[in-house]
């Protein structure tokens, strides 16, 4: 049968974000493909060099519309390390709480997308409804559902009142019940299993060779989580389980994210239980002393790396951001070979693409 090359994107109904792909097919079989980034490249690393550190907190937040908070948390942690500032412990816990709520809504968003792609609209509707509850909390405490502007260099912009803490606990309890129900549905839904079990399996060897991180790596048995392995504060004081599976297929990636949602909600309770009273920010100078730092954190999609160099001025001399989606995107052409055309959306969604993060 003849080979046909299908261009997809940069804007296409299949895609949630702009990405350019060329997929080669022969009949119903996919032969391979290539992809190209850049449609939403904003030159953020270069732009950051022209902004002050204070301005950069807001610029960095706009790298991503899903995991915006972990970006600013990681950036602020890098700047604070160079400044030698001790961020108040309560501020560290509020940051972590926001990071974990971000993980919950990111995973629920992904679970909805995978359900949609396999034709389970009810699960899609429910997960996206539940995701709103996490966003409600973030809006209540920060004022923003997507860009929260929670962080500032030296701490966070707001404290949590007792009423807010009570609301968060109640909503997290509700979400935990819903996450348990979702897990039951996932484990007993034959259509989901039929469409994901054995689809696009990734061995641990492949994961390591492609430097893939986060839930995709953990679904293939590669046990890596920067919250445990290289814990930024306050994760060095928190205990939680890292969820892994061995199968490496689309099913394992689904189960890991669903399980991780439940574990993350437990962690939200732990954070609230252990959060001490106290101030939530300290004053930070505008100029950062000369120095360089590498920091890592665990974004919803995996390890996030920031390299920051200061020349002693108000602006960074170099800021490098390696987002977790980038290595996962590199893997997609390999995953596309020898699958059915109907499985393209499942494979594409499986790695939890975030093009805005990858493009920067």
């Amino acid at each position, binding site marked *: 049968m003849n080979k046909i090359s299908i261009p997809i994107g940069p804007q296409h109904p299949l895609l949630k974000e702009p990405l350019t792909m060329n997929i080669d097919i022969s009949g119903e079989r996919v032969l391979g493909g290539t992809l190209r980034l850049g449609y939403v490249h904003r030159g953020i690393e*270069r732009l950051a060099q022209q902004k002050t550190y204070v301005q950069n907190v807001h610029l960095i937040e706009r790298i991503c519309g899903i995991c915006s908070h972990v970006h600013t948390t990681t950036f602020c942690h890098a700047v604070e390390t*160079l400044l030698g500032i001790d961020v108040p412990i309560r501020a560290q816990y509020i940051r972590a709480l926001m990071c974990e709520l971000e993980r919950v809504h990111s995973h629920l968003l992904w679970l909805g997308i995978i359900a949609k792609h396999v034709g389970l609209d009810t699960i899609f509707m429910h997960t996206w409804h539940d995701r709103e509850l996490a966003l409600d909390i973030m809006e209540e405490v920060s004022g923003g559902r997507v860009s929260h502007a929670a962080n500032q260099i030296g701490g966070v912009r707001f404290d949590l009142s007792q009423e807010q803490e009570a609301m968060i606990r109640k909503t997290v309890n509700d979400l935990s019940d819903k996450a348990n129900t979702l897990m039951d549905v996932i484990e007993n839904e034959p259509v989901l299993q039929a469409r994901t079990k054995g689809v696009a399996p990734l061995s641990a060897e492949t994961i390591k*060779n492609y430097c893939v991180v986060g839930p995709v790596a953990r679904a293939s048995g590669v046990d890596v989580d920067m919250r445990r392995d290289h814990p930024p504060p306050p994760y060095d004081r928190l205990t939680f389980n890292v969820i892994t599976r061995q199968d490496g297929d689309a099913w394992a990636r689904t189960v890991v994210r669903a399980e991780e949602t439940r574990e993350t909600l437990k962690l939200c309770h732990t954070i609230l239980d252990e959060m001490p009273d106290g101030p939530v920010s300290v004053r930070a100078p505008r100029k950062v002393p000369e120095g360089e730092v*590498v920091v890592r954190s665990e974004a919803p999609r995996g390890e996030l790396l920031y390299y920051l160099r200061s020349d002693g001025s108000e602006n960074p001399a170099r800021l490098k951001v390696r987002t977790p989606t980038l290595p996962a995107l590199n893997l997609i052409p390999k995953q596309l070979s020898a699958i059915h055309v109907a499985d393209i959306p499942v494979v594409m969604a499986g790695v939890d693409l975030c093009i805005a993060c990858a493009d920067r």
Partner: protein
Amino acid sequence: MVMIDQKTLQKEINNVIDSDFEIYPGIQGDHTICIPSVQLKNVIVMMMDKFDCRHLSGITAQIRSENQDVIEVLYHFWIGSSFSLMIKLPKHAPKLAEITSILPGADFYEREVAEMFGVEFIGREEIPPLLLPDDWDQGPPFI
């Protein structure tokens, strides 16, 4: 979780490059060593073979204002702790061995460095644009 002893790793790197490397103490939270650019691939092959070290977190390129004739390239590894290889290239002819053939995860990282800093990765075919527009004709943006 992979944990590699830094001292053992450094000893093996010394054996590969057949001379003492320079430790760069400037990066907080990271153990950084400078190696000659010609030894990069040999060092990474050794790290992969002897330590199963394949967790390349990213590649950073930069030009320091105090040394504008040099492009500095950092290979950020995770070995149970943060570890980077630093390579210095002349800005007028920045060439470096590719490692994508041995570690496919380096593909996008190398493409980005090639595009943004004009570094030529020896052993790779012509690198198509990754982030910049197809008709970009103003040279590497960071140069």
